[in-house]
């Protein structure tokens, strides 16, 4: 029995990297969804993460004087992975909503984006969110674990053919292929696609009304017990905004302010 205990503890010791409290070990791991989400977070051909959100993360970490690492994670498992301590902060354009607040805590928002449905310019149907019948028979794409998917499920179930995708760029692929009529996305992010040559034939068809379930902007997610980390992040975000760095970063990718009011 003693031998077993020794073997077991040896396994535990070799298996993991013992991580004590976060203050002592100043490496903060940021969980980013492992999919291209231009211009917020994209992995370029050399394997480096680039984008507005990555730049903001670097700025925030500089202010916190902490070393930051990025952990790739599938979007639809990002909250369980945070709770499982696979990383310490969700930093992947996650909207702050009451539903999510039941499970995790959030930093202050760092940008705000409305939610939209995008379709082909050639599609001349008059979509009206207040009249679900106008969507009858359309195929709509949404990402699993996204707010748009929840919204569509609740309001348009049975009216539309809702297709659930693991990542956003899969949605775009099917929109381009004509396999779906409409695609749910974040309004600001999807501009990146609409500006590209292949996005010229598409436009925003519907802006989803600002419902309570859509929350209060996008921010970083932390575990409920990590209040110290959350406060550090909030301080840093405020500092980045106050120093003008936020606007510098934003100007690199957008020609308007994405903070919202």
């Amino acid at each position: 029995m003693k031998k077993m205990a020794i073997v077991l503890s040896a396994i535990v010791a070799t298996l993991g990297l013992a991580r004590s409290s976060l203050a002592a070990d100043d490496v903060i791991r940021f969980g980013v969804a492992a999919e291209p989400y231009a211009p917020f977070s994209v992995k370029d051909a050399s394997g480096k993460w680039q984008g507005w959100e990555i730049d903001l993360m670097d700025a925030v970490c500089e202010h916190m004087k902490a070393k930051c690492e990025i952990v790739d994670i599938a979007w639809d498992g990002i909250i369980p992975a945070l709770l499982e301590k696979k990383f310490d902060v969700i930093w992947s354009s996650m909207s702050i909503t009451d539903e999510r607040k039941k499970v995790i805590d959030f930093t202050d928002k760092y940008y705000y984006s409305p939610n939209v449905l995008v379709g082909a310019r050639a599609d001349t149907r008059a979509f009206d969110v207040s009249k679900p019948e106008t969507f009858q028979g359309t195929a709509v794409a949404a990402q699993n674990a996204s707010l748009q998917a929840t919204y569509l499920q609740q309001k348009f179930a049975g009216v539309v053919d809702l297709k659930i995708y693991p990542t956003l760029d899969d949605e775009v692929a099917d929109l381009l292929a004509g396999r779906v009529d409409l695609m749910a996305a974040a309004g600001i992010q999807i501009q990146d696609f609409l500006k590209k040559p292949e996005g010229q034939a598409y436009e925003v068809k519907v802006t989803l009304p600002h419902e309570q379930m859509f929350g209060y902007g996008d921010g970083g997610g932390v575990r409920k017990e990590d209040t110290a980390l959350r406060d550090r992040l909030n301080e840093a975000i405020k500092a980045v905004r106050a120093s003008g760095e936020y606007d510098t970063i934003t100007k690199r990718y957008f020609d308007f302010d994405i903070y919202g009011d």
Partner: protein
Amino acid sequence: MDSTSSWLTLLSFGDQGWGDELVRGACLSLGISISAYLIGLVLGLVGAVAKLSGNRVAIATASAYTTIIRSIPDILIIFLVYYTATDAFRSLMSLSGFPAEFQLNGFVAAAFSLGIVQGGYSTEVLRGAIVAVARGQSEAASALGLTRRQTFFLIILPQMFPLALPGLGNLWLVVLKESSLVSLIGFTELVLVGKMAAGATRHYLLFYASIGAVFLIMSGISTALIHLVEEKTYRTWRHG
């Protein structure tokens, strides 16, 4: 001509092309496969011994393990292990008095999830091989006064190896392909690298076909190596 050159650029090495990223992903796939394979072998050995032990609890546990792995989709088991197991493991550790504040890094967690699935398949392969080793061997060993543990490690295990070889080779080919499943928990191995490249450049068929080609190459090399090992082993091994 133009499209071919753009394909070559996309796949090339260096900053412009995704070729080096794909290779890096392939190395990660191999790494995960090897780790999961070894973890699976250890679990399989434990399971096989348990099934042959005669102890009812051990047999029941091992049977439950293999039955579950064989009837439930591997991706589901991987999700369960990856998204909930660390938590369960931690509470288990704290219950038994061990330090509970530890963290498994991503690679280890992914390899472990895959390894648990592999263990289920390995158990049957190893069990069959152990049983195939002539009964007379263990009887002769006990007549010579060897303990059960000595019998197992000195007599049975070495002879079981050649018999298990085809099965073990097959298990390797399986884990090589199964490693693609860890892409679904966000672990950036070959398939996920290809998927991200395809999504960023919109050249879907090119990248997915390339990934397929890389897997074919890896499977091909593996099969050739397995044949080599089998030939060498059978040449030096005389059937008793």
